[in-house]
């Protein structure tokens, strides 16, 4: 019964999406309010049907209904319930369905929140959202259908890929990734609608920025969770290997970050409009490219668990979306009239521009390194990949330059500043730079790039903290009490600004942690017999013994270690080898003793329960902890910036009020006369 129900729901969602897309685009041309109303209803209907289809699949999984093809493929009576629940996204067909479900939720929420507010843009935006939705419903209905009826349902299945069962992070990483990836459809819809209308007015900037910010937060956390998962599960002591699948998650994040910055310049100065919509479109296209790379099996990667024939279909969609975007840009970009102009090279908007160029450069660097092997293989049939040193050598300098801008940019005022103002803004943070560098050197940092990172990071940290509390400090100077100044200046009026600088501060932490942890990592390999102790980097590591533990879904061989430092017992670590019935070979799981100062990471290379011996690889790296924490703080900062203050205020005033204190020049002149005023 369930397979048929599922198929009906999917076909219904396809119909609703197609109808709504057509209605939306027609309403966009005819400006028919009835058309728009019906397009909105289609959007809600699509969302309801696809979400129901997802619920049907979850029910089938939980009931172990092996007459549903997808359940027969990934279900198993042996695995724990949480594994069964997350099986929805453990393999290709389910993950595309999951994609549809998330898209349905996003479209419903976006349609609801923008109803009646942006009649100019909403019809086309709905048209674009539902066109994307129609494509994914088509994928679910035909080439990646999870609801086939099994003629002879098996009694039990293999369960999902063992690597996915191995860690609970795998239950939360994919939802975040999908919430990030899929959410980029919404700003893409607004950007396309703006181009179709030939106008990017002030009103639409708010939904554009917010709909980009929310998936950006999810995407940031998802990238971190993916790295953390790799760190906790794969056992090579690192978290990022420039693997194509990792790159696929990073690429849209880079362009989205650039777009979030350029939107601010549009808000403040009325310039960079075409550039901003281009970045938003590029973000969506990179999402689809990433989906192609991870869901089509063209790449061999530790993170990609699906291989399928839907690759060509996604490629066709990518080509169509690319053509659509380019055509829109070609015909409409000159209509997005510029209202102001770049005033000076030492201004904040100029720094924004450089920031954007660097982000685009970074995107290209990663993109080329990722797709080059694909192109070579397609053309010459030869297999190769681009090695890690390429990415490291290219990305590190660009990343350092961005960190530098993260300090200099916010220090400079908007518009033209006198050289005296510039000097006053740029000189004091050198103290922070010196402090961080000296502290790092004293603690043993010697690598050149790490010291550069510390200097730029220290500079940026001081600027960030200065800027973060500027509204509060000004209120305190005016005689308000610290508490009311904080609430009023930081949380009510200047919430967006406060949140943004929290993100900046967290970025400084993350980049420093990455630089220091990777440049100061130590590795050792030791073989232990029972009771033997090895001293590595001040840790006394003793093998207590090796035992085997049988669980319903796996057999684990566990090496028990006790860790003593300075005569004090600090931890017990149990790295293991697990044998899953579905896999021929065992999978190692490392164990980590993590502290804010440094991580001790044990990974089993070889373990023998009969001889009671174990060979392990030991990694010791400082500050790794701060990478995860830093990204979580980034997410929190993003949320603070996103949630708009409840006090106040008509749209438009919010921006002005929030920035009242730092504007050097009045807001942009609507039509800047040519500069002949001397």
């Amino acid at each position, binding site marked *: 019964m369930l397979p048929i129900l599922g198929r009906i729901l999917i076909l219904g969602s396809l119909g609703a999406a197609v109808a709504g897309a057509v209605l939306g685009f027609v309403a966009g041309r005819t400006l028919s309010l009835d058309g728009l109303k019906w397009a909105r209803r289609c959007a809600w209907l699509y969302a309801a049907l696809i979400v129901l289809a997802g619920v049907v699949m979850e029910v089938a999984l939980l009931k172990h209904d092996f007459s549903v093809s997808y359940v027969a493929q990934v279900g198993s009576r042996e695995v724990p319930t949480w594994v069964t629940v997350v099986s929805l996204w453990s393999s290709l067909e389910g993950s595309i369905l999951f994609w549809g479900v998330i898209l349905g939720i996003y479209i419903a929420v976006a349609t609801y929140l923008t109803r009646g507010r942006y009649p100019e843009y909403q019809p086309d935006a709905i048209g674009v959202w539902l066109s994307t939705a129609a494509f994914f419903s088509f994928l679910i209905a035909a080439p990646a259908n999870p609801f086939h009826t099994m003629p002879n349902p098996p009694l039990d299945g293999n369960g999902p890929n063992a690597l996915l069962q191995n860690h609970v992070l795998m239950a939360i990483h994919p939802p975040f990734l999908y919430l990030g990836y899929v959410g980029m459809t919404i700003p893409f819809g607004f950007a396309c609608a703006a181009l179709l209308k030939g106008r990017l007015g002030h009103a639409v900037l708010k939904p554009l920025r917010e709909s980009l910010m929310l998936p950006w937060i999810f995407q940031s956390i998802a990238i971190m969770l993916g790295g953390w998962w790799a760190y906790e599960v*794969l056992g*090579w*002591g*690192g978290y990022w*290997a420039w*693997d194509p699948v990792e790159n696929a998650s990073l690429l849209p994040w880079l362009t989205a970050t650039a777009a979030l910055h350029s939107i601010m310049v549009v808000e403040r100065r009325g310039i960079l409009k075409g550039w901003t919509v281009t970045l938003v479109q590029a973000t969506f296209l990179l999402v689809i490219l990433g989906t192609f790379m991870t869901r089509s099996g063209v790449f*061999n*990667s*530790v993170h990609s668990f699906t291989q399928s024939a839907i690759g060509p279909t996604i490629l066709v969609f990518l080509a169509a979306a690319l053509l659509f975007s380019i055509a829109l840009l070609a015909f409409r970009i000159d209509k997005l009239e510029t209202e102001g102009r770049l005033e000076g090279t030492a201004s904040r908007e100029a720094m924004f521009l450089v920031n954007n160029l660097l982000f685009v*450069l970074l995107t*290209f*660097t990663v993109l*080329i*390194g990722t797709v*080059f092997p694909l192109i070579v293989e397609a053309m010459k049939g*030869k*297999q*190769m*990949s*681009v*090695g*890690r*040193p*390429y990415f490291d*050598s*290219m990305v590190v300098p660009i990343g350092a330059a961005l960190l530098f801008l993260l300090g200099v940019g916010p220090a400079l005022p908007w518009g033209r500043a006198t050289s005296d103002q510039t000097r006053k803004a740029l000189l004091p943070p050198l103290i922070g730079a010196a402090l961080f560098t000296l502290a790092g050197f004293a603690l043993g940092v010697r690598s050149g790039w790490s010291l550069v990172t510390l200097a730029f990071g220290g500079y940026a940290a001081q600027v960030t903290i200065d800027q973060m509390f500027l509204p509060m400090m000004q209120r305190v100077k005016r005689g308000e009490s610290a508490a009311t100044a904080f609430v009023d200046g930081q949380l009510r009026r200047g919430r967006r600004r406060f949140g943004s600088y929290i993100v900046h501060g967290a970025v400084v932490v993350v980049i420093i942690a990455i630089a220091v942890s990777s440049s100061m990592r130590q590795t050792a*390999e030791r*073989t232990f017999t029972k009771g033997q102790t090895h001293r590595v980097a001040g840790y006394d590591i003793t093998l207590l013994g090796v035992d085997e533990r049988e669980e319903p879904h796996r057999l684990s061989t566990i090496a028990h270690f006790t860790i003593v430092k300075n005569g004090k017992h600090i931890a017990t670590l149990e790295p293991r*080898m697990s044998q899953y019935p*579905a*896999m*021929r*070979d*065992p*999978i*190692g799981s490392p164990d980590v003793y993590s502290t804010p100062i440094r991580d001790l990471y044990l990974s*089993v*290379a*070889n*373990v023998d329960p009969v001889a009671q011996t174990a*060979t392990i*690889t030991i990694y010791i790296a400082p500050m790794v902890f701060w990478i995860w924490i830093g990204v979580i703080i980034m997410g929190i900062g993003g949320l603070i910036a996103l949630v708009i203050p409840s006090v106040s205020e008509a749209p438009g005033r919010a921006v002005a009020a929030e920035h009242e204190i730092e504007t050097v020049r009045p807001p942009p002149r609507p039509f800047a006369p*040519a*500069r*002949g005023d*001397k």
Partner: protein
Amino acid sequence: MNESEKTRRKTRWFMLGAFVVAGAAFALIAATSMSKNLVYYWTPVDLYRAGNKAYGATIRLGGMVTPGSIKKLGGTAVEFDVHDATQHVHVKTSSVPPQMFRANIGVVVEGTMLRDGYFQSSRLMVSHNNEYKAPAKGHPVDQKTLRKMMESTEGIKD
């Protein structure tokens, strides 16, 4: 007015020129860096075919571990032969062999060919593919199977 208009045009051309130069420089740096850091996925036959190009290049060599060739050296080091249907390559590795390393199993080693006639590897990976089955005794190892194996073997990290 005209004067400043002219200056602005000049600035614009200057900026455009600067962008083109910077872009070209960047492309050149990226291309050089990439060509230096390519990793080739080869079977023993490919490796012999590549001739001199194999020396110093980063290679992921995929093949079967020849029975009877595994020798433990001091410490964690191991040496063994990797073969496909027609060629053998002698491999020395410094990394700890993983749990399931044994004769007649598909492996991927990352490293480079040395002029001394052996393949120096720093990483040894055993195929993790579920579907992959070692060929029955006496049957030749075919290139296609090896390529599939290399594709499905976990990426060699670090």
